[in-house]
């Protein structure tokens, strides 16, 4: 195999990620001057890609299927909402939201890693739903309406006071968020986690602290989800119980399936595709859920490794043909 092919294969995820983030940045900048509705939509896309990335990270690198990432995402958003009347600075609000999500992940992780596989997934789901019910019932969380009206100002010096400004600032935050996810995957930390996932017996026999690493991976993913939840609250200026509902945890998993579980770009591509699919379908018909569902079914059946899998296959085919042509000559 040629070194070019090998290199392409080894760095495919990184290259794909750079391309998609640049495209997202261009998209955000082009929409920053559009209608408020478009601004909110794109702002949300810019946040969701990081969130879905963190869910993909949990699944692919840490090796656990969490159905309760809404706990940390929604939990951070609610924390921002609750703290907003007392805290003026958006930067501080974001940090408080992330802090709350991190602590929540640290506590949940302590209990949750004692149970294996499917029970783990169900337990995360149950926890998330409990929070959902709680948020709807309690008066201090605003009940069904939720919390709203905590205005924005500046976040780390960048203007987020209007949806348009927010979207433009997200160019920076999304790029940084993706860089963070990339680092968490390719640093030694990520490599050790991938090794543990690949063979925990071997890792243990080498003296690796398996539980410590997986716990740390879970907490870090929770913290990143918390960043996204906080940003969400700051973008919309409101938090409603929906954000804690199971679909907040479930959608990222569907998006990851669409994009492909196998690489770092998969969840990001899947997220963008899903959000645009819903956006377009809901503009055309009231029964959009039916259509989106059907399309998803077809995509998942036709491309079990997701969009990234399709691209990967196509690229491999072209390269192989080229190599063969080369050999014949």
């Amino acid at each position, binding site marked *: 195999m040629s070194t070019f092919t*090998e290199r392409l294969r*080894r760095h495919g995820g990184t290259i794909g990620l750079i391309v998609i983030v640049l495209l997202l940045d261009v998209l955000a900048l082009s929409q920053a001057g559009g209608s408020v509705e478009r601004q909110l939509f794109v702002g949300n896309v810019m946040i969701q890609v990081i969130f879905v990335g963190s869910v993909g990270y949990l699944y692919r690198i840490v090796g656990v299927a969490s159905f309760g990432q809404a706990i940390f995402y929604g939990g951070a958003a609610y924390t921002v909402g609750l703290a907003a009347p007392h805290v003026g600075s958006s930067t501080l609000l974001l940090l408080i939201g992330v802090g709350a999500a991190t602590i929540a992940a640290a506590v949940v992780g302590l209990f949750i890693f004692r149970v294996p596989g499917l029970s783990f997934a169900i337990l995360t789901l149950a926890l998330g739903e409990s929070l959902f019910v709680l948020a709807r019932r309690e008066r201090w969380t605003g009940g069904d309406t939720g919390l709203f009206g905590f205005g924005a100002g500046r976040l780390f010096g960048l203007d987020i006071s209007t949806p348009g400004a927010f979207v433009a600032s997200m160019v920076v935050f999304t790029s940084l968020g993706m860089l963070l996810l990339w*680092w*968490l995957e*390719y*640093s*030694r*930390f990520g*490599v*050790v986690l*991938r*090794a543990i996932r*690949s*063979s925990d*017996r*071997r*890792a*243990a*026999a*080498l*003296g*690796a*602290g*398996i539980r*410590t*690493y997986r716990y*740390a991976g879970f907490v870090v993913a929770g913290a990143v989800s918390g960043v996204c939840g906080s940003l969400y609250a700051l973008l919309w200026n409101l938090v409603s119980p929906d954000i804690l509902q199971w679909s907040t945890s479930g959608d990222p998993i569907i998006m990851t399936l669409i994009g492909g579980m196998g690489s770092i770009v998969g969840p990001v591509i899947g997220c963008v595709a899903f959000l645009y699919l819903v956006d377009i379908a809901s503009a055309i018909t009231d029964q959009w859920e039916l259509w989106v569902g059907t399309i998803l079914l077809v995509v998942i059946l036709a491309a079990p490794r997701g969009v990234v899998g399709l691209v990967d296959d196509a690229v491999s085919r072209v390269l192989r043909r080229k190599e063969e042509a080369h050999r014949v000559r």
Partner: protein
Amino acid sequence: MSDNAIELHAVDKQYGETYALRDVELTVQTGEIRGLIGPNGAGKTTLSAGIAGEVPFTRGRVRLLGHDTTRWNARRVARLGVGRSFQVAQVFDELSVEQNVALAAEVAGLSPLRAVLSRRWSPDLSHLERVGLLGRREVPAGELAQADRKLLELAMVLVGEPRVVVLDEPTAGMSSQEAEECAELLRELAAEQELTLLITEHNMNVMFRLAHSITVLVGGEVLLTGAPEQVRTDRRLAEVYFGSDAEEEEATR
């Protein structure tokens, strides 16, 4: 402290009513190469896993390098300086050969915090060169042939500079020539690094040439222990292998 690297006293391993190991006594001196043979199901792999702390014994005591490790888990045993290979080689498929070895060398004392701060590994590739895989260091381990996986795993075990190494069928899946080369390599390495080796093996040629002494395990119990020549000519061994289990010997050829 004693001169024994491995000491097992009255070790049992029970799965429900069934004994996988029963009243096993085993003493391996520091620097010794001990072979462990016996028909399939004799408990060789159970013994390896138990010593390594992966699957605790039901009863009995384990001392490794002078420490009572009876209740220790695999990670703690590994950090004491006990390496181990598996019957079916366990390597990290999606990582490159080089990354496998680098990670093996560093992971034992690496905290998540330090790990997250850096991308750089500083691999010691001498072991990879030793097993003849240096040329394939950028290949994902998942693409290696069975014999090469075994060798990679060996390099991963050795790079951690263990003092005791438990090898579960190190030459499984190798051609007879590859197996002999591997045995030769093991002998050299053991001498150079003053390793204590406990090796289970189906390949008798390899075993009789490599081991200083051999323990025969049958039905979870120690049948005999002795020098290779002594064991080879012992009538009881012939009964085990050529008597009731003749077909099995065929199968392992």
